[in-house]
């Protein structure tokens, strides 16, 4: 008789016991898989989204909050910073380039980010259709944002879905970005001035070279396009509609984002840098432009240490180091994932024990059967293999079921939980996961080893003479 058929009927005769072992293995594997996949996804996204950003300069508050809100767009920023304050720093000799960010609104949960074109370049964004913005209130959208080219829409107050709409001004989609696998896939991106304008703030100085110290050629093009912006007109309109923002102002101010400001028409183009700017600090009143933060790339690693010291000590701003904060975050989350990892290890060990208990306990009842096989000419080795393969069958079924459970749950969570849905992560067979599968497999074999040895060393004559 074929040993596989024999193993099948043997396991079938103990289906309840075997099912318990299979499900315990499956749960352990599924949890291990989920922990592994989410850790992998998390670290992949953290490194990709934060790549090339050495510092974030923003309002004082929680540095982690600043990093999460401005790089990863998952938290609320600690506040805004007056642009004239930021200008004091962005010309610092240790800074390679900066990318401004102005947050405050969303469209159906997708954040509307006012920034420069360098933001797109930083994430290697390529246009799928359309073009980049040339005027205020023109936007390009990430691949996960369900907006069509030329579609107009109103931004809603706040960074999460559910706020009131800016009824007075509509954005227009002029470009769609190809999927990048980074944070910008889920963002609506426009000029800083668009965001400032809609919140009743003066626009930035279009000729201000501090904004784009990266690649001068790009900056010049960018500035040219900025020159074409009907900025003053927009601002004027905004002033006229200033009252419509009162409600929004209250709401947004609670969140420390852009609130409507009383117009003062301070022209930043007239502002000088450095000391001159300081002298005029008193002129920067409520309608002066504010941004949420600057993403900073420094010229050297030493600047990542020196610059935050300078900013945190000498200015009213805060400089946060993403590497430091993310290490802190992952160490905190690591405790959680370690708990799950421990749980999965416990489940896998329980599964191994149940395989051991199932085979070992059943062995007593099967001694007669196994002795019969030996008497009929089955070798010790063959009996050993039968028992080992029974254990392996259980562990393989548990592994397959666990992987199916894990992948299904991972896909469900990915599709149901919006932040994961928008990043469109898929199952990835990592080395860690292959290691886990290997460990589970070896554990299963180890659990079957003792019963297999015991079964193969059975004393046939004694066993067959028992109870006669």
């Amino acid at each position: 008789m074929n040993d596989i058929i024999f193993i099948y009927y043997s396991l079938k005769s103990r289906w309840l016991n075997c099912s318990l072992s299979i499900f315990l293995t499956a749960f352990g594997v599924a949890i291990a898989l989920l922990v592994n996949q989410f850790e992998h996804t998390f670290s992949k996204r953290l490194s990709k989204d934060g790549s090339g950003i050495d510092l974030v300069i923003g309002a004082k508050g929680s540095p982690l909050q600043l990093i999460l809100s401005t790089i990863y767009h998952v938290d609320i920023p600690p506040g805004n910073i007056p642009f004239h304050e930021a200008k004091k720093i962005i010309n610092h000799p240790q800074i390679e380039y900066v990318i401004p960010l102005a947050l405050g609104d969303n469209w159906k949960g997708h954040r509307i980010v006012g920034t420069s074109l360098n933001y797109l370049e930083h994430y290697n964004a390529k246009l799928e259709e359309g073009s980049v913005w040339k005027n205020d209130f023109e936007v390009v959208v990430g691949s996960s944002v369900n907006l069509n080219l030329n579609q107009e829409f109103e931004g809603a107050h706040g960074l999460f879905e559910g706020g009131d709409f800016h009824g007075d001004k509509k954005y227009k989609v002029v470009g769609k970005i190809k999927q990048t696998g980074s944070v910008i896939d889920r963002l609506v991106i426009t000029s800083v001035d668009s965001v400032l304008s809609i919140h009743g703030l003066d626009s930035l100085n279009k000729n201000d070279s501090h904004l784009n110290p990266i690649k001068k050629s790009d900056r010049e093009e960018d500035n040219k396009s900025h020159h074409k912006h009907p900025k003053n007109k927009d601002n004027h309109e905004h002033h006229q509609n200033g009252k419509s923002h009162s409600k929004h102002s209250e709401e947004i101010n609670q969140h420390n984002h852009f609130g409507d400001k009383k117009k003062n028409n301070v022209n930043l183009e007239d502002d000088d840098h450095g000391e001159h700017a300081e002298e005029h600090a008193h002129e920067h009143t409520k309608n002066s432009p504010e941004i949420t933060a600057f993403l900073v790339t420094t010229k050297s690693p030493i600047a990542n240490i020196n610059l935050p010291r300078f900013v945190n000590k000498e200015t009213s701003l805060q400089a946060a180091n993403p590497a430091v904060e993310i290490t802190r975050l992952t160490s905190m989350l690591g405790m959680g994932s370690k708990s799950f990892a421990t749980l999965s290890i416990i489940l896998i060990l329980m599964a191994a024990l149940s395989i051991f208990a199932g085979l070992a306990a059943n062995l007593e009842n099967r001694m007669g059967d196994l002795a019969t096989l030996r008497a009929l000419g089955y070798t010790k080795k063959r009996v050993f293999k039968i028992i080992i393969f029974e254990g392996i069958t259980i562990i393989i079924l548990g592994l397959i079921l666990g992987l199916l459970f894990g992948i299904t749950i991972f896909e469900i969570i990915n599709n149901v939980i919006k932040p994961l849905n928008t990043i469109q992560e898929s199952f990835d067979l990592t080395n860690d996961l292959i290691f886990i599968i290997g460990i589970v497999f070896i554990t299963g074999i180890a659990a079957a080893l003792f019963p297999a040895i015991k079964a193969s060393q059975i004393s046939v004559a004694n066993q067959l003479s028992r109870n006669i």
Partner: protein
Amino acid sequence: MHFKIENLKFKYGSQIVFDNQSFTINRGQKLLIHGPSGCGKTTLINLMSGLLQSQFGKIIFESEDLFELSENQLDKLRAKNFGFVFQRLYLINYLNVEQNIQLANISSNSCDMNSLIEELGLLDKRKSKIRELSVGEAQRVAIARAIVSKPKVIFADEPTSALDDNNSEKVMKLLFAQAEKNNTTLIVSSHDSRIKKKFSNFLELD
């Protein structure tokens, strides 16, 4: 000469089960090992079939000294040459009749399993589980498993001990018929005097 037993002695601890046994068995011979319970009948069958080893004496089967063979060699020898009908039958409950018979080493020389099942009146029971069989049917399945591989020797340990006269008669007829058919040596251990008259060769143990 099929079997040659020379000065065979066996003891459990200090208790001698039998001593100085010497006899020969020819191919196709039918031998009854007779004696009361506990006299060592099963032990002798276990020794002759290579399931037990003794430090005293020799058992030669077709020029092979069983006590000189390794465990692996004994396993192969058993699979190729011996069929067993155990006292407690030892049929595997989670397999059906056909699968239990197939546990024996069925080679290309083996008799057709289907015709054997039919001959033993088990045709309508071939897919039945062991627990669904009567004692007589289960006994026939055990015999079928013992003879399906056309062994040179059939060892039957107390094959009739749990059977009534009628069934006892049937089982012995069946074993004899199958042994005759294939010129198989039949070695039966029993304390049952009812079957004694069927054998011309006895080994009396006490």
